[in-house]
Each structure stands twice: as structure tokens, then as C-alpha cells.
């Protein structure tokens, strides 16, 4: 029985995590931009009579770097904790990868080189002489395609049979990179990256750069809205059908009325709302976004936007973490580790919440569809897509303004220097991305629905049904909040819903509905029209809808995000700041809107 600790090292974005996932069967998030792995993932696998413990280290360009992220990698290698270092290199960019290989071979000879992305290299007409590379480097070299596990049997066998003694022949590990490159790599095309260069010229051009960006955003939203419509309606009608069935069943087994009401009006309503209204848009948006990410478009966005971020005293990579925020703000905050300078990292962390995460999109979409567009289906959704894109752009603008204000006041300083790598475009595995991320999203949302939405549904039902004096606790709360709500153009219920939505943004709207329902207005909401009737019946106007959207964009981060901010900044003060800042901004904007509306 052998036990081997194997560290995966390599330049950022050479497919380390893909190799790691393929080896261990784990699901580390991968994406085509440098710095995706921010934590050390550990995974195990058994091969013959051996157990391999794999450690996926964050990508590094060299071992003596100043960035904290890379320092982790350097320290780990130097500590000699690993029995074996598996260097992962990008076959399409071997020359630059050799820099790190050289660094590593200077400190250890317990190394195996895995030349990954051989399929991309073949496509680009880059031929590698693996035999020769092995001879020149004096370590085992295996060519792989991690996505299809090509070369993995040899890789595992090499890892299994590798013993440090065999290569301890005191080879001189100082080599000339240019020599090795010249001897091992032959190009069959003059410019192997011509496709990338052509595409880059388009997506970063002065004229087309920004329109392409906005169009892509718009397209994603539009597909999300159109696509989510059908499953949403199907799920809604299924759930309302089930609702009656379950009620009849519960009554027939003589369940007490209180229990029936708590289960059905509390738990069931919240749960089914989250599943039917929130899940479909999330399950469509997420894979689309992942496709763009895997293709390698995000670094180009960062490239285009860098100048704007620089003017705001922020780091160019902040646009990458901002993009991640669209998926999940907690992930975005964690991703801020790719920013080396502490000052700029803090700015990125604090402002991450200004772009709406996946859990807020469906709320925005529903409100926009109800109050902002009317008319034919496809034209309506296109208009809704434009409006949503507009609100997102407002979110981005606020991100920039706040970044600027922060860097002028509490977080004063000059923008630090950095290098942003624009990786080669890679064809995403469309089928598997879609299937995997729809599946992952569904499991994630369902999990949260069960863990957070369901208990909260019951809690709110209890609040709505325990009476103190002649009205419920919930009513007392909403009435207490109502004067405040009126000042910012909403009502007490909405304020209450946002507060109760702290554990998860998904439940804001169902909480609202439940509050309204307890006043006896709502009976059923299987379609958006019914939802509209209910909301209008409760006094919603265009201004209310606008204010809710603003509050949805700008309010305190959800519980998970707050915890992540606390973890990443290690400071309660900054967490409180990140909590208060968006809240104050949201309330401020709504107050101004209300002021205007009352004056007009």
C-alpha cells in the first residue's frame, strides 16, 4: 500500500483544475481565465494498490512572486511536503510555461510534467516532441487532454511507478529555455494563434468592443427570460394543481386547520415560489454565463474595462470579480483574492454586491415583466431584456462611482501595477457545460429552498398568525416599518421582506406575497398576471416597482456573502461597512425617487 501526496502546479489557466477534476472525480469550478482557483483543493484517488492525495495549488507564474496567491504555491513546493510535484503545462504556450518548470526543477527533482491541452495545440498546428522534452528536462513527460482524459492511463502509471531515486542522477537543472523550445516545438502554421488574434481585434476594438459586450449581456438576459417563461408556467400550474390535492389529502386525514395552513400557506407557497419562479431563470442564465467564461471572453471584458476601473483607482481584475458576482456575490468576494494589492482587493470586495447575483435576477425579471413592459410576447421580452440590461449597467456604474469614492477617501492610494493575461479562446464543451450547470444550479437552488426557504416560510407563517392584541406579529412589524417604507416610496411589507430575505435573496418576493396574503388579498398566483393583480391590489404603482428594483440592486449582501466578506477581510468593521454602504445607497436613491414623485 503506497500513499503519495501529489501537488499540482502550473501557470494559471493551463487546465490544472480540469486535470485535478479528471483525476479525482471532483467538481472544482473551472473557467477560462487566469486565477480561477483561489483555494487549495484536496482530492484523493486510488490506483492499483496506491492512494494518491492530490493538492490543486493556485496557479503561479514563478516561485518567488510577490502576490500572496502565488506565495502559497511557492511555499508549498519549497516546504517539500509533496512526495511528487505534477507540473501542468499548456501545450499551446510551452515556452512561457518553461519559466516556471525551470523554477521548480531548481528546487526539486521529484517532478513529473503533464503537457495538457494537446488537442488545442494540434488544432493550432503546434507539434511537440514529447520524447525529446523528456530527455532534455530529465523528468517524465506525459502529453494529455484532460477534458477527454487522453493520456491519463500513462499519467497514472507514471505517477504510480515514479520514485525520486530514479532521477537523482545529479543532472544539471539549469537549462536554456529558448534551446529547449526550439528543439521540441515545431509550428506548421506561421501564426498558430491567428484565429484568437482576429477575434481579439474585434471584441476589443474601439468601435465594436463595448457594443459587443452590451449585446452579449442583452442576449443572455433575453434568452433567460424567453427560456424561463415556459418551465416557469408549467411548474406553477403543476404546483397549484398539487396544492389542491395536498390540501384535500390533509383535510381527509383530519389534519388540524392550523397545520394545513402552516404547511400549505407557509412552507408550500414559499418553496414552490422559489422552485417555479426563481429556478428556471437561474438554470438558464448560469450555463450561458459559464459558456462565455469557458470560452475565455471574461478577460477581454476586463481588458476593455480596465481603463475605466483605473480611473476609479481600482484594479483591472475587479471587472473579473464583478463578473463572477453575476453568478454569486459570495463567489465574487472570494474571487477577489486574485487582486494582489490589499487596498484594491478591499474596494472590489465592498463593491461586489452592486451587481445582482443569480438569486436576484428572477425577482428583477418578474417585476420588470409585470410593471415595465406590456405588449406582445417576444417584443415584450426583448424590451424587458433591454430594461434589465439598463439596470445592470446602472449597477456597474454605481460600482465604479463607489470604487472611485472609496479610493479618494477611506481607501486612498494609487492603482497598483499588474499584468492581465488574455488566454487563448477555447471551445467550451457546450453539451456538458449546459447539462452540468443546469444540474448543479438545480441541486443548489433546491438545496437552498429546502434549507432556507422552507423553514422561513413556516417562520413567516407563524409571525403572520400569532396575534398580539388584535393583529399579528408580522402586521405589527410591517406597520412599524410602514412609515419608513413610505418615505422611500415602498411600504412596510417590502421593507420587511428585504430584511427577512437576509438569509437568501430568493425568498424576498414570496415573503412579500405571504405578508400581503395574510391580509387576505392573495389566493393564488399561478401566473404573472395574477401576481400583477395582487400587487396592484396592494397598492403597487410604477414607482413602487421601480423602488423595489433599486432596493433589490442595492441592499445589504445576503448572509452567505456577509460571512464570506468577514472571512476574506478578517475585519468586522469592513463587513459592517460592506453591509451598510449598499443599503444606504439603495435607500438614498429610493428616497430621491420618492421626493421627485411627490413633488411632480
Amino acid at each position, binding site marked *: 500500500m503506497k500513499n503519495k501526496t501529489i501537488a499540482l502546479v502550473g501557470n494559471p489557466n493551463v487546465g490544472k483544475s480540469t486535470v485535478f477534476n479528471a483525476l479525482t472525480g471532483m467538481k472544482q469550478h473551472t473557467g477560462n481565465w487566469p486565477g480561477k482557483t483561489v483555494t487549495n483543493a484536496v482530492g484523493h484517488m486510488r490506483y492499483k494498490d496506491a492512494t494518491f492525495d492530490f493538492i490543486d495549488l493556485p496557479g503561479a507564474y514563478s516561485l518567488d512572486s510577490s502576490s500572496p496567491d502565488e506565495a502559497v504555491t511557492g511555499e508549498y513546493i519549497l516546504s517539500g511536503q509533496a512526495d511528487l510535484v505534477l507540473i501542468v503545462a499548456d501545450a499551446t504556450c510551452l515556452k*512561457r510555461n518553461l519559466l516556471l518548470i525551470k523554477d521548480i526543477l531548481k528546487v526539486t527533482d521529484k517532478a513529473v510534467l503533464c503537457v495538457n491541452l494537446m488537442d488545442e495545440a494540434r488544432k493550432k498546428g503546434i507539434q511537440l516532441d514529447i520524447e525529446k522534452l523528456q530527455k532534455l528536462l530529465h523528468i517524465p513527460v506525459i502529453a494529455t487532454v484532460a477534458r477527454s482524459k487522453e493520456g491519463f492511463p500513462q499519467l497514472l502509471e507514471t505517477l504510480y511507478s515514479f520514485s525520486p531515486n530514479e532521477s537523482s542522477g545529479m543532472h544539471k537543472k539549469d537549462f536554456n529555455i529558448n534551446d529547449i523550445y526550439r528543439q521540441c516545438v515545431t509550428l506548421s502554421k506561421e501564426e498558430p494563434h491567428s484565429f484568437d488574434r482576429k477575434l481579439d481585434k474585434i471584441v476589443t476594438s474601439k468601435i465594436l468592443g463595448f457594443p459587443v459586450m452590451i449585446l452579449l449581456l442583452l442576449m443572455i438576459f433575453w434568452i433567460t427570460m424567453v427560456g424561463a417563461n415556459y418551465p416557469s408556467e408549467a411548474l406553477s400550474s403543476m404546483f397549484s394543481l398539487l396544492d389542491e390535492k395536498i390540501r384535500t389529502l390533509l383535510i381527509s386525514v383530519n389534519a388540524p386547520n392550523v397545520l394545513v395552513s402552516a404547511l400549505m400557506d407557509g412552507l408550500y407557497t414559499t418553496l414552490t415560489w422559489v422552485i417555479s419562479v426563481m429556478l428556471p431563470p437561474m438554470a438558464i442564465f448560469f450555463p450561458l454565463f459559464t459558456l462565455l467564461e469557458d470560452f475565455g471572453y471574461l478577460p477581454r471584458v476586463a481588458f476593455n474595462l480596465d481603463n475605466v476601473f483605473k480611473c476609479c483607482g481600482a484594479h483591472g481584475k475587479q471587472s473579473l470579480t464583478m463578473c463572477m458576482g453575476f453568478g454569486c456575490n459570495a463567489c465574487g468576494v472570494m474571487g477577489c483574492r486574485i487582486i494582489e494589492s490589499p487596498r484594491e482587493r478591499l474596494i472590489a470586495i465592498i463593491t461586489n454586491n452592486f451587481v445582482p447575483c443569480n438569486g436576484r435576477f428572477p425577482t428583477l425579471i418578474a417585476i420588470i415583466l409585470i410593471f415595465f413592459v406590456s405588449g406582445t410576447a417576444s417584443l415584450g421580452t426583448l424590451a424587458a431584456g433591454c430594461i434589465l440590461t439598463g439596470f445592470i449597467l446602472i449597477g456597474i456604474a454605481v460600482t465604479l462611482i463607489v470604487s472611485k469614492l472609496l479610493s479618494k477617501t477611506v481607501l486612498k492610494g494609487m492603482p497598483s501595477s499588474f*499584468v492581465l493575461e488574455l488566454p487563448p479562446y477555447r471551445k467550451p464543451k457546450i453539451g456538458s457545460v449546459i447539462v452540468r450547470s443546469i444540474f448543479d444550479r438545480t441541486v443548489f437552488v433546491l438545496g437552498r429552498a429546502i434549507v432556507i426557504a422552507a423553514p422561513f416560510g413556516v417562520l413567516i407563517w407563524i409571525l403572520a398568525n400569532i396575534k398580539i392584541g388584535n393583529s399579528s406579529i408580522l402586521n405589527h412589524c410591517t406597520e412599524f416599518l410602514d412609515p419608513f417604507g413610505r418615505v422611500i416610496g415602498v411600504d412596510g411589507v417590502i421593507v420587511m421582506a428585504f430584511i427577512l430575505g437576509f438569509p437568501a435573496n430568493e425568498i424576498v418576493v414570496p415573503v412579500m406575497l405571504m405578508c400581503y396574503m395574510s391580509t387576505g388579498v392573495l389566493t393564488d398566483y399561478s401566473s404573472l398576471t395574477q401576481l400583477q393583480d395582487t400587487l396592484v391590489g396592494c397598492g403597487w404603482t410604477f414607482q413602487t416597482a421601480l423602488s423595489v428594483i433599486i432596493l433589490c440592486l442595492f441592499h445589504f449582501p445576503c448572509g452567505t456573502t456577509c460571512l464570506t466578506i468577514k472571512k476574506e477581510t478578517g475585519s468586522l468593521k469592513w463587513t459592517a461597512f460592506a453591509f451598510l454602504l449598499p443599503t444606504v445607497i439603495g435607500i438614498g436613491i429610493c428616497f430621491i425617487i420618492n421626493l421627485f414623485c411627490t413633488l411632480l
Partner: protein
Amino acid sequence: MNDVSITLPMAVPGKEYIIQSIKKGAAVADTFRGYGIFPGAKITLLFNSPAKNPSAYEVMGAVLALRKEDSNNIYISPAIVK
């Protein structure tokens, strides 16, 4: 002529240059090394971002974006075409 050096942002797009020196005190020189940006290495300006800053350069087969503030510290001279 190898001894005539200009700063990196002055490079002509598509033309290959050799890095002559990196200004002392540039805090980033350490970081640059791992990217393949060090004296003696080849570098080519590929394209600019919409605001002309940052710009993308090809170094050792990879595309790297540098801000003018940083690339101004890098001195280059034209590579001799064989």
C-alpha cells in the same frame, strides 16, 4: 541599432522587439519575470484596448495586457530580423 532604446508603449504594432532593461525601482520587476518579461526577452505589441490603455503584448507565445503606467518602465529596441 540595438543601443537605441525606446519605451514599450512606443512600439509599432506587430513588430518584434527585445527588452533592453526595466527601470530600477519598478516594484513589478519581480512579478514581470514569471510572465517572461525580463531583459533579453522578445515582445510584440498586438493591439490596444478601446481606450488605448492597457495594450496587449505577445510574450513567449502568451498575450499579456499591460497598463501604460507599467509599460513605460520597460525599454526595448527592435529585434534584428534575420
